[in-house]
């Protein structure tokens, strides 16, 4: 029996860096609209797995399907076009540009007018509205003309999320979106993520167990490149294997 098509299906994906196996035959299936959180200690292979899904890394083995498309070896920029959006662990925003220009670039990434050589981005129908909407969503509308150098770290994280959101991705990969934020900022960004509509499937890496478990429908735990356990937040909390790798308890 075939169930409904999953948003993301990772089958036995392996990623080697020379002699180091960063991702070791990991499989996971994420349903449409699901909130999946990946946890695991440093070096567990979470970000490497993200890079494999988004296309920043070519995989060494296995298969990746996204909304029914086989994307294992699809170039990264084409994956964006089929609806995969992502944020980076270390803010990867465009320095030297304004907040609005940052969002405009993101909005143009999968836009049919991205090769327009003549008009200004704000003269292209729809772009302005799209940008304003997402800037308001991430709380940066009043900062839109600012240079990035004048933005706080927290605001850069908000912008980072805005870049990934502007094109309404179907699958959103969030790599520790709240890392390095103060508790107040963390709370704000987290509630923003929580309010995203279920039309966006989310896979998130998060170190903070409380944040992670508050959002997740399902949690996947990685350790040394392997998936060790998968289940609901409560199951994960009680799992002896997870307690061992995470807290050093037996």
């Amino acid at each position, binding site marked *: 029996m075939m169930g409904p098509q999953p948003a993301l299906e990772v089958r036995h994906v392996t990623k080697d860096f020379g002699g180091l196996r960063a991702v070791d035959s990991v499989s996971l299936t994420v349903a449409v609209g699901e909130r999946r959180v990946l946890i695991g200690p440093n070096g567990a292979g979470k970000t490497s797995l993200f890079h494999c899904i*988004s*296309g*920043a890394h070519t995989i060494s083995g296995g298969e990746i399907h996204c909304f029914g498309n086989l994307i294992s070896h699809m*170039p*990264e*920029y*084409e994956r*964006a*076009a089929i609806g995969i*959006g*992502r944020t*980076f662990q270390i803010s*990867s*925003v*465009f*320095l*030297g*540009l304004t907040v609005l*220009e940052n969002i*405009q*670039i*993101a909005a*143009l*990434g*999968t*836009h049919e*007018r*991205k*090769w*327009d*050589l*003549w*008009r*200004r*981005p704000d003269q*292209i129908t729809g772009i302005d509205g799209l940008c304003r909407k997402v800037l308001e969503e991430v709380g940066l509308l009043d900062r839109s003309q600012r240079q990035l150098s004048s933005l706080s770290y927290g605001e850069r994280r908000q912008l980072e999320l805005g*870049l990934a959101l502007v*094109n309404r991705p179907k699958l959103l990969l969030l790599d520790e979106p709240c890392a390095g934020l103060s508790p107040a900022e963390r709370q704000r960004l987290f509630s923003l993520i929580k309010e995203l509509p279920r039309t966006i499937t989310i896979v998130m890496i998060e170190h903070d167990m409380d944040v992670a478990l508050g959002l997740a429908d399902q949690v996947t735990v990685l350790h040394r490149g392997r998936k060790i356990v998968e289940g609901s937040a409560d199951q994960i909390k009680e799992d002896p294997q997870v307690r061992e790798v995470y807290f050093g308890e037996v």
Partner: protein
Amino acid sequence: MTNLKKVLALAALGLMLAWPFITGDYLTGLMTQILIFGLLALSADLLLGHAGLFSLCHASFFSVAAYTAAILQVRYQVPVEVSAICGVLSGTLLGLIFGLSVRTRGVYFILVTLAMGYVVWGIGYRWASFTGGDSGVTGVAAFSLFGFSFSSPKSYYFVVLFVVSALIAVYAHLTASPFGLALRGIKSSEPRMRSLGFNPAKHLYVAFVISSVMASIAGVLYVYFNKFVNPVSASLHVSVDSVLMAIVGGSGSLFGSFIGSAIVLWLRNWVSTFIELHLAVMGLVFIAVVLWAPGGLMGWVHKVTSKSSREMS
């Protein structure tokens, strides 16, 4: 501030239009050169200032366009208008080939373009039966259009001013368009651009070819100004000058390349009248700019004006 900028731009335009009438043939010729080399610098700066690629082969497009226009007209009696167009096309064709260099980045891009530039210079210098070798191609006619010949320095100055102004307008649109914005995005973070759905290699290739078209137009303008072309126009020296002009004037700005061109050419003309080491003087100017005004003259002016407006408010 924007009003001040508009007034300044109008004043500059007025000065440019009046220039041949308030100065003599020598200064008109110098200004013609400033415009031509400013255009070459602007073409190199599309890659450097917007996309972050440091090219050392822009003399190639410049010289191939100049040689093509000269050879067609002098040896094959092709009409000037047609030779000029063929010149631009040949430089562009070379740009389509050399554009493959955008597969490399950073220091490798610099080295690849450097090598390509040397190939063109070597051909110009050594293939004497075709290029005229050391002495190049001489006896180029004045530029003409529909039977009207722009043979006086004054009239040709206006041809150059018209072409350069039109290209500045196109360049302003191009760099403010989604395409231009994407180039700046690529300069800032290529991995992020890929994750957003851009293919940076494609954007950079197109930018490279557009840049080569502009350099070729500068080359054609140059050959009708100079009335001859020799391998010096293909040398590394010219490529370096074009990038140096952009940096001195203000890389990434619309008029910085022309200001840089004016500074470099005027300094060279002036300094070489009393000291033979004018190249050393240029080197010192370049070092000073990089150390104390990395944004070039335009960047420095911008910094000073924004600082004073902050202090006033």
